[in-house]
């Protein structure tokens, strides 16, 4: 076991050396090593902002869901004032799990062991037989509540962190917020969750999924080549989706932007520079939006974002460390293009297990019928039975198994496909933008941030 200030592993390896900056390699042992895993729980999951769900899951006072921050269970609850709180689901008395159900509604979270009671915000209410003061007098009541995490609601998404004095959520997103806003904040209503997330267990290290979420576009060509066999016409389709612009940041966030003109016949001329935003919007509004929403969207986005949205909108990517997001355009028989969105988190459950959590979203105000269509489209492709992602979840365990081998763990993961093109022409957005064929840069940025966090003594 390492001390909290270690910068080397107990076999003498410098943690920073696990990521070899000169050759852009990462030692495979990071996918299996128990010591590294424990450090990650402190230095990554104990420090960064973590996605826990969406405000629409707990719309009413007293509503709660039970979620996980790293390997800790937390209660995500809404209080009478409408504020959302995140509390460690560990009774301040003797450590019993206070909340035992996946979701529900209560103003009093009462521990079944000895009856200590807590508010939705985690505050201690009291213990049974008040006159006996079974909570004693050594610790003031104000300190007997559940441990509270720092919360930030971003576009309805509930993020929390144990890092009370660390960077703000906006600092955390950094320049990338410009792009995320385009997805999450474009409408006044925002997204709403369509139901409790799918959950399933994968025998793999969380980083096998995590590093992929940092915009690994290349694997689609091989691992998901059925897409081409089933929907394409001989291989050219998938290859064309390899092109686009990847954006990433020093914080490991990443997104892939894809050209609408290449993806949709009707948007063929969007890049010509001759069409107004209005013209384009009427032909192809943002997914989940209807033509009449243009003004609303314009209110929420800058002209540059608007232009970006109508040419190269971000489609898929991740938020460091363990979030994947995927926007889905679903063309309908009536010519409309419905849009849904899926968010995943990969919850670490040990060095070689992760829990895959999959939320599906629709823009608020979407008709019930359209919601159902989008939902079915989405789970057809993503999550438990999703035709795309069932291949991914069978892959990560093999990588993890390789990393358990004594020789295998000495091998490396390589990120040597480097984008050498000039930045995309007339690019409107901030952060690092990589043009052309999908390369390894954004994934490499992901590892570099992991390295940075892991090298900082807690």
């Amino acid at each position, binding site marked *: 076991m390492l001390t909290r200030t270690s910068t080397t592993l107990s076999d003498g390896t410098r943690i920073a050396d696990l990521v070899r900056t000169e050759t852009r390699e990462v030692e495979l042992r990071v996918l299996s090593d128990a010591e590294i895993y424990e450090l990650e729980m402190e230095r990554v999951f104990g420090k960064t902002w973590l996605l826990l769900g969406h405000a629409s899951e707990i719309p009413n006072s007293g509503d709660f869901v039970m979620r996980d921050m790293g390997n800790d269970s937390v209660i995500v609850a809404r209080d009478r004032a409408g504020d959302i709180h995140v509390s460690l689901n560990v009774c301040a008395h003797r450590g019993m799990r206070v909340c035992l159900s996946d979701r529900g509604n209560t103003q009093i979270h009462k521990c079944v062991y000895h009856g200590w009671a807590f508010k939705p915000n985690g505050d201690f209410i009291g213990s049974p037989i008040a006159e006996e003061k079974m909570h004693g007098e050594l610790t003031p009541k104000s300190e007997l509540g559940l441990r509270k995490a720092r919360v930030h609601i971003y576009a309805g998404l509930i993020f929390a962190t144990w890092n009370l004095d660390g960077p703000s959520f906006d600092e955390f997103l950094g320049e990338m917020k410009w792009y995320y806003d385009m997805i999450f904040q474009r409408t006044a209503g925002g997204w709403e969750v369509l139901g*409790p997330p799918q959950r399933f267990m994968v025998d793999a290290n969380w980083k096998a999924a995590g590093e992929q979420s940092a915009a690994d576009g290349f694997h689609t060509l091989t691992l998901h080549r059925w897409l081409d*066999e089933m929907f394409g016409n001989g291989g050219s389709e998938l290859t064309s989706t390899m092109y686009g612009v990847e954006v990433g940041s020093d914080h490991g966030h990443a997104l892939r932007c894809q050209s609408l003109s290449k993806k949709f016949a009707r948007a063929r001329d969007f890049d010509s520079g001759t069409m107004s935003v209005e013209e384009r919007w009427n032909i192809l509004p943002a997914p989940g939006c209807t033509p009449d929403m243009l003004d609303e969207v314009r209110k929420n986005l800058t002209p540059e974002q608007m232009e970006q949205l109508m040419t190269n909108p971000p489609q898929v990517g991740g938020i460091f460390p363990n979030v994947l997001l995927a926007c889905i355009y679903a063309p309908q028989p009536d010519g409309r293009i419905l849009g849904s969105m899926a968010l995943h988190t990969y919850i670490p459950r040990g060095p070689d297990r992760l829990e895959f959590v999959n939320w599906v979203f629709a823009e608020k105000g979407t008709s019930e019928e359209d919601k159902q269509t989008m939902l079915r489209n989405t789970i057809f492709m993503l999550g438990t039975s999703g035709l795309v992602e069932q*291949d991914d979840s069978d892959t990560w365990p093999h990588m993890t198994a390789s990393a358990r081998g004594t020789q295998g763990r000495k091998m490396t993961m390589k990120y040597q496909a480097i984008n050498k093109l000039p930045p995309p022409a007339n690019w409107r957005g901030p952060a690092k933008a990589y043009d052309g064929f999908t390369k390894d840069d954004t994934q490499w940025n992901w590892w570099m941030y992991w390295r940075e966090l892991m090298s900082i003594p807690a």
Partner: protein
Amino acid sequence: MATAANDATETQPAPPPRRVPIGSPLYNRILETYYDEAAMLDELRYNEWIAWLAKDLRYTVPQRLTRLLADHDQSIDRSVMHYDEDYGMMAARARRLGGNSAFAEDPPSRTRRLITNIRVELTGTEGEYRVLNYMLLTRSRFEQTRMAVLSGERRDRIRDLGDRFELVEREVIIDQSVLGMPNLAIFL
């Protein structure tokens, strides 16, 4: 969040449905059908399996939530499900599995679907029957020596076509709130 999809499945105040007695010719034919179906899936005979699906099929696998006893009727959630398919989607899935690049199941899992506790009831519709049955699925991939085990109840509606039946509706109530497999690339 859409909660209308939750419902109380355990307590039905409706009049009890009429049973197709165990041992009746109809029941026995259905039993044969179910055993044959299990064999089709376990032997990867997807084309035959698709042939037993009705064109108006609805195939769903709801989520299970851990809820307090008082909220037990919310323990089956039919909003975001693990599967929510029609005939075309199931056929596409099967086509994919039989192809060259469905890596989630290539090499294929070794599976076994043990079907027990089969109860059959009449429905309001002539020639359609409700078939409740328990399934124990075992699954082994690669060199795994601890088989993945999943139990559940399949709540089906089937249609008698005279010489055979077809599956019109299947809802699988699985017994885990966090599924213990990396995917449901296999059919239940």
